[in-house]
């Protein structure tokens, strides 16, 4: 589904990704771990097409289409969803309004008919319930006044409503207590564990991987994937740390 080949990218002229390659098939869950500053969030932003994250080499395709040629909203319509590490507040715009406009913009781009107000509300209600969020919260402005945990749950509600092919979840587990972690983990499983879906989990910790079992675990360091393996790699990392694997925190 996603093919990243020898990807190089820089921010403010500083190289962050240095020849990253990764192949994710439909039906798979991949975890990307790595020390701070390794380029994990940069990878998410580059795939999302964030301005200022400049690709200097390599290629990325999603279902064969050149992702790097697309605008951010076109990538979204093509099925790419980015779960933000720090979800952004949009004052005065309710979650319902935001997501209905977003969902219908994606549908329009794909040549699908718009969801009616009633159909959308049914969908929103079902997805919100799946993540223990009330419709009252859905009617509040996007992420405004939400706790850290609520923001992460709201991200998963958004994912459920937008129903992407590929979700890249950037530290979706950070800031969650044990109960919220389980709710979010179950949400990811329910929404994305399907034969035609795929997930990239960016995380520091094993604990999310207890809820969402990865098919592959990759370790990112200095902008490249330096090791790949099965779930046991994450356990080894949790036990021994990056240093034992010969990896330094790039920021320390």
């Amino acid at each position: 589904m996603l093919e990243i080949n020898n990807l190089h990218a820089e921010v403010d002229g500083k190289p962050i990704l240095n020849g990253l390659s990764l192949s994710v098939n439909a039906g798979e869950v991949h975890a990307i771990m790595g020390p701070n500053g390794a380029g994990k969030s940069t990878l998410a932003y580059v795939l999302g097409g964030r301005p200022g994250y400049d690709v200097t080499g390599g290629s990325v395709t999603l279902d064969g289409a050149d992702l790097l040629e697309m605008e951010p909203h076109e990538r979204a319509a093509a099925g790419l969803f980015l779960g933000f590490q720090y979800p952004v507040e949009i004052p005065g715009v309710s979650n319902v309004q935001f997501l209905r406009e977003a969902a219908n913009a994606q549908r329009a781009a794909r040549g699908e008919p718009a969801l009616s107000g009633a159909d959308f509300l049914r969908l929103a209600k079902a997805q919100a319930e799946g993540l223990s969020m009330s419709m009252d919260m859905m009617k509040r402005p996007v992420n405004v006044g939400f706790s850290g945990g609520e923001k992460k749950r709201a991200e998963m509600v958004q994912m459920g409503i937008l129903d992407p092919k590929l979700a890249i979840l950037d530290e979706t587990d950070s800031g969650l207590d044990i109960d919220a972690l389980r709710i979010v983990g179950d949400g990811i499983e329910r929404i994305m564990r399907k034969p035609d879906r795929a997930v990239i989990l960016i995380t520091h910790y094993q604990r999310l991987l207890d809820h969402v079992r990865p098919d592959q675990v990759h370790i990112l360091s200095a902008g490249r994937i330096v090791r790949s393996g099965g779930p046991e790699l994450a356990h080894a990392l949790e036990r021994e740390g990056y240093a034992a694997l010969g990896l330094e925190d790039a920021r320390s």
Partner: protein
Amino acid sequence: MATKNAEAIAAANKKYEWGFATDIEQDFAPKGLSEDTVRYISAKKGEPEWMLDWRLKAYRMWLELEAPDWAKLNVPPIDYQDAYYYAEPKVKPTLASLDELDPEIRRTYEKLGIPIEEQKVLAGVEGARKVAVDAVFDSVSVATTFRKELEAAGVIFRSISEAIREYPDLVRRWLGKVVPQRDNYFATLNSAVFSDGTFVYIPEGVRCPMELSTYFRINAENTGQFERTLIVADKGSYVSYLEGCTAPMRDENQLHAAVVELVALDDAEIKYSTVQNWYPGDENGLGGIYNFVTKRALCQGRNSKVSWTQVETGSAVTWKYPSCVLAGDGSVGEFYSVAVTNNLQQADTGTKMIHLGKNTRSTIVSKGISAGRSDNTYRGLVRVAPTAESVRNFTQCDSLLLGDQCGAHTVPYIEVRNPTATIEHEATTSKISDDQMFYATQRGLDQEAAVALIVNGFAREVLQQLPMEFAVEAQKLLGISLEGSVG
């Protein structure tokens, strides 16, 4: 000829999607401003002598006045002798139904996107929501609907020309009482040459059975528009009035100097909503309307209330301060405003809340949105007279900047002469952040949809004050007005 103009203009600039001209032959007053012009207008309207005298008095005052220059606006000198002061459609019928309306005008309304519900009303569909439309096409009212139903309720809803003829005592009693002839340069000019406008009277204890709506439209090239609106809400009455404007595009600047006077007696309430979308000029500041408007309400009665809501997206220059004189004890004034400027537009807008009575309250919420190389100024006065005990005011001024070449300015004047007053003022300035833009686009919105969404969120407090008929149109307008301002 006008059709050719329209084609040429449309080709020149597709951005202003409601820019088009209508082919209606005009009956012009002689070019230029003189006593003769004033007499021509008055005679054309069959006005009584007192009205002509009133106009002439204003004209003579105007000759002694100078245009104000205190606003943060850069306006080239206006040649008042190089304009026409009166134009009317050639056919001037008073129509029984809108089917009789000139098809050209009907098409114009359709292009303006008059809401479906109102189109149904215009088409006379049974059961359609009742919104009376007093259509002011250029200077003369050509169609008035629902007059009968309003009359059954005792409501008078007329073009002001008709009202001067049919209800001279009522008009004479209130005209110029809120905005005196000498009030300011543009109001004085309007007093001399006002072409048409609307008169509304709601009798004691009556809740107006429908929202009153008037669409103003500038149509004749080089024709100044001088609308005059007077709304009187008698004791215990209520009325909601909607004023919406779009204009065809022009190469030359056009002067628009309207006067709106509102009077609320004891326990009366007036809600006045405006969506203003005059042609703003092109990307280089060419063309566009000069909008110098005097809007003021007199809350004369105890516990009376006036609420101004405005969405200002158009005009090259906007100079406008819808105000409330809170004379009656316990009276309430509100001002909710969204002002958008893009390209080289200039807006200097705000309000004046003049507290004279005891326990009077006012609320000001102003949302300024600046893009391009535009300048957007909030200018507001809160004045508390020595006699006004226990006054409360809350003011919130928020500015949103798009890009780094526009300006946002907040100029609050607070004059408190009574120590019991409680005055609060909050102001913020912010930009649409890169984070917000990326977040919204990552969810599937393109740049312009993302900006429109974020801006609508920013303006929400004001937009939710609008009646439903206007809210949807206003939201779209915000998006349209800011097209091309990012990326």
